[in-house]
């Protein structure tokens, strides 16, 4: 099979930082996926640079980029293969967005089991990041609702369920696309009567009170999240607006909607506005952000109970503004999202305090309590507190600030979310995800040559930037060096094999098929 033609183009994540160029191949059908995978694996002699799938590009950092290699645009895989309206089990192409799922199925009484703060993500991306939503404390993460998926790996196509190959299934859940290209998935949807939510909203004057309310009351709600003002200080540090709710039944709705069940189940998302151009850097500065946060806090009701809100406003307020990521200017921005175990809730306070000290413009932050984690070794959620902060790039000490926050998070036994990450250090990543070697072992099983690669993988040392030489084949590299050092981060036991320390210059042993190690 010849390699499918790609178009060279620059890609970034949602944060619009660190652009790199790749061949973008449109996965117009599943045969293209197979062909592209095969071509990526066969291009060893031409310094092949691997392949990774990309959905709607909502990962903030470099997860769906593959510099110099192939990026498979999987949004083409948008077919509905099978829909069972009695059980709510649907099989769809991995490129189907959660928005499409909602548009088609909410009017028929089925809602996605988990949705993040944007519905503009694909099913494939939702699995690769094992996304979570406001209902994590009750329903867990996305992959807990995936019954089956088809995964194209360099060693073949597999149909995966948690029972058929639990190791590969859970390595793919949160595996950031580095175990294969997901082409379709079967999902258990949840039954809803209407497209409305019954929402309780309350303001909390400070961080302690909001955390107390969440600890005490979250279990009574299916969905819960708090928006925190990270600009206010002193007694008002961490003042928040807490919104919690559940799906509304028809009988909960006002008369006019009850009389028209079609309207009560309508799901027609609209983009209210679009950011037409990229404004100068610094539009979102401490002053404008503080003003916005103030407005947000004051517009929220003090305490409001069982108010019907449409799903779109409750789950995805920002989706009403197209390309809002442009507001951060050409420098772009990043999201710092971490989780710490329940007993380290204090870390949340220390992080917010640190942010107010450095006067960094932080847009509304999102605080949420996670429930039990799922078995994925790279899956982000763990029982505890998660805080997500949007931060503009360009502040001169952002690097040191975030490294210091990493330290606090690690001390608490927590971690950062890879779907949001664009800057964590490889060594910190390994501490945060102690089961990474277990994950690498599964990856090496299905991708022994390291064909699946991304910029995130290179940055974190999950995949190397070259394919190892083919067995029995002399490559340029093999000729040119006698003791070529692999690039290696100072990791605790890299890959599946132990790392011996050699001389200062050549610290890693060379093997013919090295386990995945740090790239650039």
């Amino acid at each position, binding site marked *: 099979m010849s390699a499918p033609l790609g178009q*060279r183009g*620059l890609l970034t994540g949602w*944060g619009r*930082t*660190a*652009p*790199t*160029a*790749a061949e973008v191949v449109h996965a117009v059908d599943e045969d293209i996926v197979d062909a592209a995978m095969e071509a990526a694996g066969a291009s060893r002699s031409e*310094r092949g*640079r691997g392949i990774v799938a990309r959905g709607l590009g909502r990962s903030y*950092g*470099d997860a769906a980029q593959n*510099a*110099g*290699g192939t990026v498979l645009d999987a949004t083409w895989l948008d077919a509905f293969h099978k829909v069972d309206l009695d059980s709510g089990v649907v099989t769809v192409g991995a490129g189907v967005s959660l928005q499409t799922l909602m548009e088609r199925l909410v009017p028929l009484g089925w809602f996605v089991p988990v949705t993040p703060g944007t519905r503009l993500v694909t099913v494939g991306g939702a699995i690769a990041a094992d996304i979570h939503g406001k209902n994590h404390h009750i329903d867990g993460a996305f992959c807990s609702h995936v019954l089956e998926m088809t995964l194209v790996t360099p060693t073949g196509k597999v149909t995966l369920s948690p029972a058929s190959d639990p190791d590969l299934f859970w390595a793919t859940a949160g595996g950031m696309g580095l175990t294969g290209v997901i082409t379709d998935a079967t999902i258990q949807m949840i039954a809803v009567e209407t497209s409305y939510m019954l929402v309780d909203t309350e303001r909390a004057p400070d961080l302690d009170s909001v955390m107390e309310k969440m600890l005490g009351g979250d279990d009574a709600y299916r969905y819960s999240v708090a928006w925190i003002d990270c600009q206010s200080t002193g007694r008002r540090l961490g003042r928040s607006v807490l919104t919690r709710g559940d799906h509304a039944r028809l009988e909960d709705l006002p008369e006019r909607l009850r009389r028209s069940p079609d309207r009560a189940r309508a799901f027609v998302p609209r983009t209210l506005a679009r950011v037409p151009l990229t404004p100068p850097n610094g539009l979102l500065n401490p002053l404008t952000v503080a003003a916005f946060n103030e407005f947000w806090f004051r517009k929220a009701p003090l305490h409001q109970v069982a108010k019907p809100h449409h799903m779109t406003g409750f789950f995805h307020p920002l989706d009403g503004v197209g390309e809002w990521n442009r507001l951060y200017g050409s*420098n*772009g921005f*990043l999201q710092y999202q971490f989780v710490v175990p329940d007993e380290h809730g204090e870390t949340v306070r220390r992080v917010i305090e640190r942010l107010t000290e450095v006067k960094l413009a932080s847009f509304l932050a999102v605080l949420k309590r996670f429930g039990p984690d799922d078995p994925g070794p790279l899956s982000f959620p763990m029982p505890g507190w998660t805080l997500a902060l949007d931060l503009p*790039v360009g502040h001169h000490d*952002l*690097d040191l600030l*975030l490294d210091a926050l990493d330290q606090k998070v690690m001390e608490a036994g927590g971690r950062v979310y890879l779907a949001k990450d*664009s*800057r964590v*250090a*490889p060594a910190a990543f390994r501490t945060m995800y102690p089961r990474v070697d277990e994950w690498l072992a599964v990856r090496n099983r299905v991708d022994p040559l390291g064909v699946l690669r991304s*910029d995130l993988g*290179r*940055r974190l040392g999950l995949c*190397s*930037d*070259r394919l190892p030489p083919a067995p029995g084949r002399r*490559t*340029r*590299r093999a000729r*040119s*060096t006698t003791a*070529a*050092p*692999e*690039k*290696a*981060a*100072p990791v605790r036991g890299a890959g599946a094999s132990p790392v011996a320390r050699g001389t*200062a*210059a*050549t*610290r890693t042993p060379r093997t013919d098929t090295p386990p995945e190690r*740090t*790239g*650039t």
Partner: protein
Amino acid sequence: MIDAIGRPQSVLVLGGASEIAQAIVAKLVPARCRTVVLAGRESARLAEAAEAARAAGADVVETVAFDTTDVDHHLAFVDQVFDRFGDFDVVIAAAGILGTQGILERDPVATASLLAANFTGLAAALVAVAGRLRQQGHGRLVVLSSVAGIRARKANFVYGSSKAGLDAFAQGLGDSLEGTGVGVTIVRPGFVVGRMTEGMAPAPFSTTPDAVADAVVKSIESGAGVVYVPSVLRWVFALMRLLPQVVWRRMPG
């Protein structure tokens, strides 16, 4: 990979013994640059530079033999280095010599060899480097130019013209790499007080290797195309360019 905040994880230095390059490496390594490859003629200084990078905490530090003027082997050299160490996030073109104007003016061979070292040979190497960077689809090429190249002065016009050539080459190269994921930064320092200028009286607006390194690290973060060190030189030299030749000719040595 260069992360969202502009921190590279690997660097290749052409002219690895350069004092400025050493100052840059000293700043990149603590900010998580793990791989440092120093290319240059074998010398005690090159070895010292490697030792310094190791002491700073880089994991992989290697020196590789490289002669700017050996253009026949540039392609093979660059391929070999990239094949051996993998991607480079940053490549610094720091090779260069100052020469002694008095000798250069009278010696065509010395002039030719300075131009080869600073301009033609280095530009040829950058062609090879740019090829690999374009392939890998990411990276930043930092080219150490000089304000001496903006308007050649009688006191050092051989050196100045070599930098003028390199600078123009780098500008064009940067434009040709638009959209490839690879960026080029041209660094134009003024008089740098250091080994290269030992015994010379500093010119106005002089700077240090450390200050140049700071500016370079910042430019990797911001993706700036041209950097003056100190930054005021941008305006000083905008004016210098406008001076009538009769005045410029009288500029002191």
